[in-house]
């Protein structure tokens, strides 16, 4: 970050002031409160800078962890201000980060199952721990007890988004708190070939950053917090173009080569309506995540000529423009015919079916690519970690997926092999923790 450690909290407050206005005023004091509470709960060593006046220093220091003054070392390894590595995404806010945040280049989706005997009280403890460390990590400071704090020196816009699986509410004895309409997806028998190893989970940590080391190190730190409460079920890693190698703000391409994610709500009013749960109740300001692992049969896809590829998508490969337009964001004309007299955007085109008829019920898509080659058949194992956020899965995602399952020509080359859903609680303010509305 290129700044001395005792400046960090003040700078953070300034940034928050810019972003959330008056709510920032209590920032400094609240940080102290979180640090104290969490450290007491966990009994860990304090690695926070002195400016935080973290009461955790009173706790015993495990022999196998580093001495407290980690920030000095971090400063020595600091990342120059104004670089990709130094950029941060605020953790606190009405909503969690990593949802409307422009997609970072790398991601790890980590799902956990709660251990036996972990109920509401212990879950709350875990979420406090996680929230505290996420707040540190996302502001460029090491997590408590970080034995390799140098690796935390480049936040690289890291964000961590916490989610709850449908079964979690039962496990902690709060089935009534499950948000309305939040449940596992129905089966899509036409297309699904789901594998258990990429499905389900009680707890999700979506870790995103513009640096893969930051993702890995954040995962390591948060796994440390989580280990006693939950066991890792699966991890799915994804990537986009490295930050700076594509033009900023452009729609990413998937590994088939298509511009993927053109239609995404961007206006605040649309995001409010389509992404954030309107409430009432603890879930107000939360959202629901659908995570589908979709394998691409690139060998078969490669046998297709470009015009066939474009017909299947309904968009041009060159710039993502609909076949009835010239620019990516041109509104597709779903009734236009071409020289053949047939619809220019075919009935089987992905674009047409994803859109549906009537007022568009968009979702916030935030997909990543994956490449885990070789697959079990000794060939490529490539695809997409499809990730979308929507206020209501049943109303927004399911009808779209049903249309696509029934008629999308792309199904010839795409196979869903993993599926999971998570309720993403609203954000928290300084002093709070993610999920506090449910558990306090």
């Amino acid at each position: 970050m290129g700044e001395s450690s005792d400046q960090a909290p003040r700078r953070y407050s300034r940034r928050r002031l810019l972003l959330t206005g008056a709510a920032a005023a209590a920032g400094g004091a609240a940080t102290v409160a979180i640090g104290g509470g969490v450290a007491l709960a966990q009994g860990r060593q304090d690695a926070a800078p002195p400016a935080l006046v973290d009461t955790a220093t009173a706790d015993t220091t495990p022999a196998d962890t580093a001495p407290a003054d980690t920030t000095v070392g971090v400063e020595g390894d600091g990342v120059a201000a104004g670089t990709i590595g130094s950029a941060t995404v605020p953790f606190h806010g009405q909503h969690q980060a990593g949802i409307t945040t422009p997609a970072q280049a790398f991601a790890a989706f980590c799902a956990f199952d709660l251990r036996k005997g972990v109920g509401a009280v212990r879950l709350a403890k875990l979420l406090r721990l996680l929230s505290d460390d996420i707040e540190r990590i996302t502001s460029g400071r090491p997590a408590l007890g970080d034995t390799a704090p140098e690796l935390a020196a480049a936040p690289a816009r890291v964000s961590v988004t916490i989610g709850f699986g449908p079964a979690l509410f039962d496990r902690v004895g709060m089935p009534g708190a499950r948000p309305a309409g939040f449940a596992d997806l129905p089966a899509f028998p036409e297309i699904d070939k789901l594998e258990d190893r990429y499905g389900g989970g009680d707890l999700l940590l979506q870790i995103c950053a513009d640096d893969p080391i930051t993702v890995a190190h954040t995962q390591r730190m948060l796994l440390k917090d989580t280990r006693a409460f939950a066991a890792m079920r699966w991890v799915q890693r994804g990537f986009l173009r490295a930050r700076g190698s594509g033009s900023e703000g452009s729609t990413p391409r998937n590994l088939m080569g298509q511009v993927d994610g053109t239609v995404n709500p961007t206006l605040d009013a649309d995001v409010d309506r389509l992404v954030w749960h309107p409430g009432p109740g603890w879930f107000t300001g939360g959202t629901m995540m659908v995570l589908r692992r979709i394998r691409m049969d690139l060998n078969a896809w490669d046998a297709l000529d470009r015009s066939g590829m474009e017909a299947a998508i309904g968009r041009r490969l060159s710039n993502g423009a609909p076949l009835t337009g010239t620019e990516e964001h041109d509104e597709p004309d779903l009734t236009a015919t071409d020289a053949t007299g047939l619809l220019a955007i075919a009935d089987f085109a992905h674009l047409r079916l994803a859109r549906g008829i009537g007022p568009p019920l968009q979702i916030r898509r935030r997909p990543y690519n994956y490449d885990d080659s070789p697959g079990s058949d000794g060939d490529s194992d490539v695809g997409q970690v499809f990730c979308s956020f929507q206020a209501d899965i049943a109303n927004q995602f399911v009808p779209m997926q049903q249309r696509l399952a029934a008629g999308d020509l792309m199904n010839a080359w795409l196979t869903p092999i993993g599926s999971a859903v998570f309720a993403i609680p609203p954000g928290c303010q300084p002093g709070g923790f993610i999920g506090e509305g449910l558990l306090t």
Partner: protein
Amino acid sequence: MTSAPASPHPGARRLRFVVVSLLMLLMTAALSALAPAALAHDALVSSNPVAGSVVATAPASIELVFNQDIKNFQPKIAVTITGHDPVEIVPTVNGPRVTADLTSVDLPGRDSADPVSWRVGYRIISADGHPVTGLLDFSVGSGPAPTAVIGTAPAAGGSTQAEPIPVADSATVNAGQSGDPTTSTRWWWIGGALVIAAAITAIVIASRRANSPADGPRVGS
């Protein structure tokens, strides 16, 4: 071109290597030029009415026959009679045969007394899952075949376009279809190959001269 163990001129060997490599490249390029034809997915083999033909009366059905089986996945045919809007028809699929029964279809302009051009557009999915789009024109009615088809007249005047056309090139079709894009691509390849061949010849000649100060040619000695 035996690999003489005591070839006294390493330069000549190198040149030979370069020439052989370039020739292999050239052959690869030539094969690539032919590849599109070999890899062609579904293509229309025949039709009834025949593309470019003149038939006396409006056909009761349209039959398209492809070079391989067609998937029964959202097959579509559109019939456009000049001066009228296209009418979309869901044909039946039977192996490589796609048939659209027109008897119960409301086709504006079908009963025109004057000779009139028909255009049949099709979009089908081949057995290997590839979407294939194309169109063909024919004329209905006695008398001279009309030249005006939908949009501007094709270059050939006979209004035949039975080649599958890429969907993305529909704009080109609108502007006047002037030949099979696959064919033109092929000519580019062949032209390119000839240019490369000429370049190789030039290089060989130049190298020979450079490597042969006084005692004559050595390559292939």
